[in-house]
């Protein structure tokens, strides 16, 4: 695969639209960007009340439940893939590392970007590191870990950008840090993925007992591994479909093995997650809640979005059936989103009358769609121009 030399003229061509630019995807993306831009203007001129349905009952709404909780969980593919390749030595998954790191980096970057919309005074985001009333806060730990891990992911991503820019020395220097960065990434992810669950330990009376548990940090951490494995399969399948022409022989050959290996691991972790969820119900003796409306909804999540993908992954890995595994990854990703929304929105404040319950405004949802669209566009730009889905010819034997 020929690698273009990055010159000013080459950079100009990247931003010069031609006729092929007018595709249905680009038109829809442009409309979303324009609408998102208008709501952004409204948010930063009119404040939170102008665009959200947030209240004192529900100060954390859709932006925290979806953009932050789901965003962080679904970006777990970065630490899961790099740990399996560099720490556990499963080199056969090497081709999955760069796309997973890129997805994770963009995921965390967009979480921080979306957080600027949600916090009342976004310019105070660095305050926990400068002015604060105590380091024992779980939120302080989450903030610290996310800031550090975003930095780690940025450094882990830079070799691809440096290869693209032709900066060999800098690239080799950063590539030498890979193992250290991977270990650092695993430690930071373990800390903040679980701490996001620990944030809800403060609200035992607000969160429905079926979702509230003293094991919430464990649930969040274990489910983040499921999210990471499933996202690598899900996103790998999309790349295979839409960016097939950008993949080299190695990526195409290794793709099936990555799907089977990750599918098998995901089925096992899902089984473990299912078991600890059942044990959680037993430890708090919450069986009787299962016969209520919320109980049925809990069973939908547990049976339809945990046990079902677990069995589908297992059957797919056993039968070597790519389609089954891909379908299971879609269900598992939806399951993670459903779980985070259940905990932060649906089963939260469950005791309130309907009139006081929170439902996001269309503008809150619009901003989330806007943020996802930015992520997809940046991912597409980077993966079509930088050596993400193929190896740069100058570094074929670099790992």
């Amino acid at each position, binding site marked *: 695969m020929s690698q273009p030399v990055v010159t000013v003229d080459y950079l100009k061509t990247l931003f010069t639209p031609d006729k092929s630019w007018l595709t249905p995807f680009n038109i829809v993306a442009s409309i979303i960007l324009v609408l998102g831009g208008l709501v952004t203007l409204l948010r930063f001129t009119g404040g939170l009340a102008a665009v959200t349905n947030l209240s004192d009952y529900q100060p954390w709404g859709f932006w925290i439940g979806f953009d932050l909780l789901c965003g962080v969980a679904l970006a777990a593919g970065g630490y899961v893939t790099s740990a399996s390749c560099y720490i556990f*030595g*499963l*080199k*056969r998954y*090497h081709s999955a590392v760069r796309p997973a790191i890129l997805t994770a980096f963009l995921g965390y970057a967009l979480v921080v970007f979306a957080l600027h919309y949600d916090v009342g005074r976004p310019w105070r985001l660095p305050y926990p590191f400068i002015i604060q009333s105590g380091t024992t806060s779980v939120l302080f730990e989450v903030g610290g870990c996310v800031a550090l891990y975003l930095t780690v992911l940025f450094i882990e991503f830079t070799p691809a950008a440096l290869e693209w820019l032709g900066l060999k020395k800098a690239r080799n220097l950063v590539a030498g840090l890979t193992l250290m960065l991977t270990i650092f990434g695993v430690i930071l992810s373990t800390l903040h993925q679980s701490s996001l669950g620990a944030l809800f330990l403060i609200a035992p009376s607000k969160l429905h007992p079926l979702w509230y548990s003293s094991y919430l940090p464990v649930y969040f951490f274990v489910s983040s591994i499921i999210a990471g494995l499933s996202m690598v399969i899900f996103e790998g399948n999309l790349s295979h479909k839409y960016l097939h022409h950008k993949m080299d*022989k*190695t990526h195409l050959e290794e793709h099936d093995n990555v799907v089977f290996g990750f599918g*098998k691991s995901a*089925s*096992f972790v899902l*089984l*473990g997650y299912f*078991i600890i969820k*059942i*044990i959680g119900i*037993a*430890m*708090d*003796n919450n069986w*009787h809640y299962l016969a209520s409306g919320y109980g049925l909804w809990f069973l939908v999540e547990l049976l339809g979005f945990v046990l079902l993908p677990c069995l589908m992954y*297992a059957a797919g*890995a*056993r039968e070597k059936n790519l389609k089954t595994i891909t379908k299971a990854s879609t269900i598992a990703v939806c399951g993670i989103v459903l779980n985070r929304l259940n905990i932060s929105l649906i089963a939260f404040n469950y005791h309130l009358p309907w009139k006081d319950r929170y439902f996001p405004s269309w503008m809150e949802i619009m901003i989330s769609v806007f943020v996802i669209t930015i992520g997809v566009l940046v991912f597409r730009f980077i993966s079509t121009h930088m050596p993400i889905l193929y*190896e740069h010819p100058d570094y*074929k034997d670099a*790992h």
Partner: protein
Amino acid sequence: MDGIFYTLQDFMTFTKGSAYLLIIAALLGILAFWRFLTERETPSVRDDEPHHH
């Protein structure tokens, strides 16, 4: 017991007891699941071997 616990000890005996039984069932289930997952597998490429492209 009619689902009512009069002492903490009653509650702990019931919940811990059911959790222990569930864990035994889970351990047996994990063995069966692992067997189902791996019984058709053939030895794959070893990861400590040089990685070829």
